[in-house]
């Protein structure tokens, strides 16, 4: 079997993988990207709507335009790109990581790397994961698959559509389906508030008079060969109120009910996965429990904006560079734990004396909430947040001065981050 040596191999050529790889190659290290699709760009390539890049590029781009900016940089860099290539296995060793990859053009090959970056993104939660009752006809799609079929393949999946879940992809697809001539009969959301960001509620539903049924669930999918309709019921004290259930005749059901980090490859290699993120548990430099194996982007935790994915991936790239230069972090790291009303905080550790960037998700909807960082019981940082909700990720930074080292020989005190 052919073998190739790299300083770093990045798995996944989407926004996260490219941003991380660019950072590593920029520091002069031999870097490769392994991508299973025919081109770089990842899921951005099917996101032909605009709204990307407002933070990173200070302008409004479409998904492919955002990706193109990274792809151009990758193409003019020294990064080796393996397209149509799937990583079959990662074997962690003390000094290097071995990856078996395969593809129609590359055949089977072994890539040896000192560092590996997991950037495989996520998959869509599906009907089975939710246990939506009813029959199993044709015409049930996850929103991302429908997006692919319309925007890349050029086919409309159906004419009369009900969307389950108000996640961002679902909202974007409501508008997209409307524009390609399908009738969107409603978006059904189990929560009392939308799961997608406000901008998409306004621009994708309200502007087209598409009804949004909050606190409603689809209690049944009907149809033998093809979807014939759904039954929708309002929630009453957390359970569907069957007496007020109503049918919607449709031929297509789209699901936009959340994303799951794709970590089967990581798990197989021995990477420890956090219960609340579905992604690897990482240290302050985004390294997993396996030495030399890093993670960033949606494989680490599901983001809502690609701008933040790219930024996190660059920090991950910096972590890889630091590792390639000096090995694993020599000093003890402090734990970071979710406090009140927080689902998770990433990364799961910090380094005393160094700037730290955190991403977290709230468990509550609240106006004028307060973000509180406690260390050894006392509040070391406060920030007022205008509005918090689970759908919108909270990002914040703590400077190294705010995180002084603990007294010698003592483990750094853990940080508890709360939204109150």
């Amino acid at each position: 079997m052919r073998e190739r040596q790299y300083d770093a191999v990045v798995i996944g050529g989407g926004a996260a993988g490219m941003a991380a790889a660019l950072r590593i190659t920029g520091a002069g290290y031999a870097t490769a990207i392994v991508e299973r699709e025919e081109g770089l760009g990842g899921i951005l390539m099917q996101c032909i709507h605009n709204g990307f890049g407002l933070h990173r590029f200070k302008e409004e781009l479409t998904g492919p335009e955002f990706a193109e900016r990274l792809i151009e940089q990758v193409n003019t860099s020294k990064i080796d790109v393996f397209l149509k290539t799937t990583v079959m296995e990662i074997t962690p060793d003390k000094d290097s990581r071995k990856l078996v990859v395969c593809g129609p053009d590359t055949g089977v090959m072994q890539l040896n790397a000192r560092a590996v970056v997991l950037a495989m993104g996520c998959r869509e939660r599906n009907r089975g994961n939710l246990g939506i009752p009813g029959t199993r006809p044709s015409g049930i799609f996850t929103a991302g698959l429908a997006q692919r079929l319309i925007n890349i393949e050029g086919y409309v999946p159906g004419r009369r559509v009900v969307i389950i879940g108000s996640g961002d992809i679902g909202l974007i697809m409501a508008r997209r389906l409307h524009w390609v001539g399908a009738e969107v009969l409603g978006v059904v959301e189990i929560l009392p508030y939308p799961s997608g960001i406000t901008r998409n509620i306004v621009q994708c539903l309200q502007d087209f008079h598409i009804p949004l049924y909050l606190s409603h669930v689809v209690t049944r999918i009907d149809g033998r060969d093809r979807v014939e309709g759904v039954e929708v019921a309002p929630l009453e004290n957390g359970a569907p109120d069957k007496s007020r259930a109503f049918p919607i005749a449709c031929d297509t059901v789209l699901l936009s009910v959340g994303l799951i980090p794709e970590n089967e490859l990581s798990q197989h290699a021995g990477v420890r996965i956090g219960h609340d993120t579905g992604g690897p548990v990482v240290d302050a430099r985004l390294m997993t429990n396996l030495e030399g194996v890093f993670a960033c982007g949606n494989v680490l935790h599901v983001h809502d904006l690609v701008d933040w994915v790219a930024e996190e991936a660059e920090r991950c790239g910096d972590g890889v560079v630091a590792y390639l230069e000096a090995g694993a972090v020599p000093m003890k790291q402090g734990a970071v734990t979710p406090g009140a009303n927080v689902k998770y905080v990433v990364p799961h550790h910090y380094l005393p004396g160094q700037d730290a960037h955190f991403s977290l998700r709230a468990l509550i909807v609240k106006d004028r909430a307060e973000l509180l960082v406690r260390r050894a019981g006392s509040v070391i940082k406060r920030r007022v947040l205008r509005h918090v909700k689970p759908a919108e990720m909270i990002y914040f930074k703590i400077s190294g001065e705010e995180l002084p080292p603990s007294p010698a020989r003592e483990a750094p005190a853990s940080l508890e981050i709360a939204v109150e």
Partner: protein
Amino acid sequence: MSDECYDVAIIGAGATGAAVARRLAAYELRVVLLEKCVDVCFGVSKANSGIIHAGFHHPVTSLKARLEIRGNLMFEQLHHELGFPFKRVGILVAAFSEEEMKTVQRLYQQGMANGVPRLEICSSERMRLLEPKLNPDVVGGLYAPTGGIIEPYRYVFALVENAQRNGVTLKTEFEVAEARHDGDAYTILSRRGDRIRAVRVVNAAGLYADEVSRIFGGEEFKIIPRKGEEFLLERNAAGLPRQVIFPVPGRHTKGILVIPTVEGTMMVGPTATEVEDKEDRATTAEHLEMVFAQAVQMVPVISRREIITSFSGSRPVLEGNDFFIDISKKAPHFIQAAGIQSPGLTASPAVAEYIKDLLKQDGLALVEKSAFDPTLPPVPRVREMSTAQLAAMAAQDPRYGHIACRCETVSEAEIVEAIRRGHATLDGIKFYTRAGMGRCQGGFCTYKVLKIIARETGLPMEAITKRGDGSYVLSHRIAPDMLAGEVGHA
């Protein structure tokens, strides 16, 4: 022009019909296998749990107990000849009270009377040793090491392929609508107007065996659909057991089981509800709750978070619950194989043997075919290859290097092979290759599979179906005036 005339027509290409077809393929006979669906194994057998039962659940007086035991013993040979995956993982019946232990005693006696090999009654400690994931409250139970698991569709596909290689004709989308006997043979008409002739007929029509019997003027009986809902959990699920775990059975059903599938996923179920509609394939929220409550009682670490899909199928139940396999006393040269519910899959090779004997009794001349080949060349599957094997295959045919279904590691070459063997629907490909059967349930591979089908068959994308009939996947192409991207509109 005279219609083609077969010696035997088998109606229904499920486990029973396929096993009969393959058995008859060993003789100098013209045999046709008729299936109303677009592919084989698309009816009752599709939703089978895949368990090869040990043979202790049914009384020795029943036909099904005899055929179950005999069938169970035939699977090693079939597995070696046909290559479908089969593992004798063993079966446990877990008892949680002294009262339930009495039933275990009864099952043990019944199993011994039936001739189940190596059956044993276990203490709580032995049960937990055999299956460490069992609820520690287990009082004891029954262990049947001869129980096993297979993939029902791979089994049926292999039987049909082997039958076809040995000269059996398969006609799919042939739904029997009419039959007349003219003294020599039956003329059988399909709903679409196709016509064949056959001297003898085997009714293996599953849920529709009653209707088929009526069409041929056979016995009057009623098949009652007993629906079972089942839930599939992902690979490496926390609750994945070593053996198939049964509760102590109720009066009519074997209860909610925890099943390791032969491919490494796991299932819990099935429920058992009698329904009116034979096509009722719906699952319900109530049953999901019930199934998980009962499964977790046996294996507490089972997590609902790991469900990837649910499905249901109906068992074709006859009054009295036994199989009805006999030469019809009303219709000439008509063999009934009705009421083949659990343990129908286990029994199927023995049922085929039994039906072969009935046909002989009915006057069919059985002359062994010297050229009969009981084996099937293995279909290469990337999932089953070592790295070196994959390297060699991919070097030979790059399509083995293209992993189209990432969750179940299925290559483009395997999908092409499935299509060439006549499985050109999304479900047909899923059952043949496992593409789309994994954790993402086709979220990533569906568009790839659609494109491969279109390329290989020449069908337009809109004509591809999930499982035939009206189950189209894509409605239409985007009209050219709507092809503009979104930016122009925004």
